[in-house]
């Protein structure tokens, strides 16, 4: 239904959208700016993208970012989907506590999550050292941390996808002679699948984007793209970092549009 909107409201809305997109557009434009210090326009160039890909630390951080994102998404999608199914399927006495536990990683400030994991790893390390073992913060510590904040998002996406479907569908499958496993794979899973995929995409994007938790759990020898951007930004603005940021924005846009396309054909129960 189309309703009248006051012209002032439309102007306001477009101003807010302009505000939201101005920095992103400036960033992309400056990534093509042929000037080392980049405050003024000095002509079009794509050389910063070349400079970017020639940097070994950028390539390494890209590999790290993608590896962590893919592996953590696989783990958290399995764990989160199972939690989401459990939340949907069972009447739980401790539902409030469980919801609280799931909401916690989403609401606690990420700096708190990061530093508590940093100390947890140090604590575990000091325990292991007494047994003669040790480990460095790096891929594994970052991976475990990412799964921790991803699980909730997947679980809640899957649960909200299934909300509205009662247990009747599964019961019907059982009445028609399907085994528990078969009714799960042929009835429940196909229903949950769009939610699972959307949750996985969300988890993947969250992992790609995360700076704070990675910053505290990665140690000195391991870095992801956001951490690399941070350390570079702290040293001063460089055009190749603009190019890197512009590329990351592009990746996000593609992921969001894909997630939107996946979620849209949502049938009304």
């Amino acid at each position, binding site marked *: 239904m*189309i309703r009248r*909107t006051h012209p002032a409201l439309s102007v*306001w*809305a477009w101003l*807010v*959208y302009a*505000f*939201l997109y*101005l*920095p*992103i557009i400036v*960033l992309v434009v*400056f990534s093509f700016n042929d000037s080392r210090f980049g*405050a003024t326009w000095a002509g079009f160039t794509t050389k910063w993208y070349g400079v970017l890909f020639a940097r070994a630390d950028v390539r390494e951080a890209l590999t790290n970012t993608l590896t962590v994102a893919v592996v953590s998404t696989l783990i958290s999608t399995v*764990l*989160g989907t*199972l*939690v989401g199914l459990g939340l949907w399927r*069972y009447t*739980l006495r401790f539902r409030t506590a469980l*919801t609280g*536990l799931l*909401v*916690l*990683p*989403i*609401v*606690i*400030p990420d*700096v*708190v999550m990061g*530093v*508590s*994991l940093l*100390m*947890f790893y*140090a604590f575990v390390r000091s325990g292991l050292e007494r047994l003669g073992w040790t480990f460095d913060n790096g891929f594994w510590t970052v991976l475990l*941390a990412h*799964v*921790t904040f991803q*699980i*909730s998002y997947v*679980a809640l996406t899957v649960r909200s996808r299934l909300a509205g479907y009662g247990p009747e569908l599964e019961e019907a499958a059982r009445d028609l002679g399907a085994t528990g496993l078969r009714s799960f794979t042929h009835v429940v899973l196909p229903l949950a699948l769009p939610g699972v995929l959307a949750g996985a995409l969300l988890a993947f994007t969250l992992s*790609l*984007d995360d*700076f*704070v938790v990675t910053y*505290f759990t990665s140690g000195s020898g391991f870095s992801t793209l*956001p951490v690399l*951007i*941070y350390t570079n*930004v702290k040293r001063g*603005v460089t055009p190749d970092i603009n190019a890197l*940021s512009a590329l*990351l*924005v592009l990746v996000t*846009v593609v*992921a*969001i549009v894909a997630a939107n396309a996946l979620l*849209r054909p949502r049938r009304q129960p």
Partner: protein
Amino acid sequence: MLTVRRFFATLGPGTLWLAAFLIVPALVMLGYSFLTRTDLAQVGGPWTLEAWGRVFGYDALFQEWTADNARVLWRSVWVAGLSTALCVLMGYPLAFYIARQDARRKNLLLLLLIIPFWTNFLIRVYAWILILRPFDLVPSLSATLLGMVYAFVPFFVLPVYSSVEKIDWRLLEAAQDLGAPPLRAFMTAVFPQTLPGLVAGILLTFIPALGTFVVSDILGGAKTAMVGNLIQNQFGQAGDWPYGSALSFLLMGMVLLGLWSYARRAGQKGLEELV
């Protein structure tokens, strides 16, 4: 029925993971907050309340009180509060605008809102350096505020939008038919219906704004340090984990207090809707 076997097949692995990597680390942090710094990023006994005393502005012997931390805490609260207020000012009308479009445009406008929502936070904050630097505004408190509003306004608009979307406009018509002037009609017939989204949006803006260190780190200077920066510093240069732990608990306490008062009002469903 949820049997033990079914628990381990569904809810078990995920909740155990969260217990291991969320709850246990919080307990470790709690323990560390009662220890002292023995060296850079090293902690040791004996058990003491020193770190907690320092959080509240006392020296190690609880003799003198300084206002330094109170100032940082107060700054965190008002910077987060002011940026939340600016988000409300910008975002509340926007939610109405989006909700009143036809389905196609609505979907597009929402997508345009979600893209910055999910674009890397660090990059979005960093982009402001490019814009503000020529005006010599970085680092400054106004740059920090601007960055905060920019970073959090999508977090605010989305929940408000979902409330506006559900508004029963017949109430507005009824109010108008009964002769209420426009402002009064809006305040009595429309505004109350948007309250759940408004409160959720304010929480979703205020909580991350209170905890962030990235915005003030990149766009502000030492003078704009917020509690997040104070925490970050304890795990970086200062290497004072007990003090950083106590500060983290204070921050987490402030956040959970806000959520708890919200959950009491909105109940379980409200808490789930927040996510």
